């Protein structure tokens, strides 16, 4: 654990924290975004802490459970951290679906915040 590069440690603790909040009380996720943060949710864009929290809070399910299959983290030239997550989720009683999520993390005033967040279900078109 101690041998892991710092961006791996920060990235994976962020990921753990993010999904823990998402699955318990996603209205609290505002704490990790800032006013210039961008979220692209299934192709739909929103910007700013308030808009992002509204989008996530209004998703039409009561319970959600994420399970992380794999995560990768990289340092960027401007000292940010890029993280990609592949996992599965279960919303209420629906069948399990795969998803991909990408985060860009930035250190502002000694705290790590998420400036960019892109989410997609791992579904393919048909017909």
């Amino acid at each position, binding site marked *: 654990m101690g041998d892991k590069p710092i961006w791996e440690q920060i990235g994976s603790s962020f990921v753990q924290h993010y999904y823990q909040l998402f699955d318990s009380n996603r209205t609290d996720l505002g704490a990790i975004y800032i006013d210039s943060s961008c979220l692209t949710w299934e192709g739909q864009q929103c910007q700013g802490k308030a808009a992002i929290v509204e989008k996530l809070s209004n998703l039409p399910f009561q319970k959600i459970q994420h399970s992380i299959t794999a995560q990768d983290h990289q340092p960027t030239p401007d000292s940010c951290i890029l993280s990609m997550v592949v996992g599965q989720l279960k919303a*209420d009683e629906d069948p399990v679906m795969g998803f991909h999520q990408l985060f860009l993390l930035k250190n502002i005033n000694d705290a790590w915040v998420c400036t960019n967040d892109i989410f997609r*279900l791992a579904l393919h078109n048909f017909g």
Partner: protein
Amino acid sequence: MAGDGHMVPELDQEKYDADENVKIICLGDSAVGKSKLMERFLVDGFRPQQLSTFALTLYKYTTTVDGKTILVDFWDTAGQERFQSMHASYYHKAHACIMVFDVQRKITYKNLNTWYQELREYRPEIPCIVVANKIDADLKVTQKNFNFAKKLNLPFYFVSAADGTNVVKLFTDAINLAVSYKQNSQDFMDQVMQELENFELEKKVEEEEEDISDKEEYDNHLAKPHTA
């Protein structure tokens, strides 16, 4: 490869042009009991096909209408609608729609408007049945007025997936409506779309003829590592 349903035989929607095949889609909010209704109707020994890469569940059913064998595919979503809007191919070539709400949850009744609008965007004319599910929880709801269906002049059923009330009638009627829609399709859009599709096909055939030598080379190239 994604985007090409022809790779998955179940999703080859060309088959819905054949006389004996009909496609019936289920719409409505999550947890209103769409899958429960399907399972109630199809009862014993039945395995739906979960196509998880598409978030779809297909239920196959064979029946006879006017002495002819009809193969029905019921399409049910597996939750994608909570994250995004439904993919257009869900509606493609559908011959009837069963739209379900939960009498215990008012919001699911309100949302019928949104579902109906989306349905009509893609399928302006197909028969649509409105279904009030979970009436077993409180039979008094059957005294209530649900004006949505009346306003739009749509058939309306009170059902219970839990105890089976009206379930067989609902599905039998849905199948009959789908078959009769198919036989006397008044849907001008359908005809236009069909013509457009044929037109494109003809064009494609010509193009393919021209490209065939390139394609063959490409295929051979691809095949090499496997044969080696």
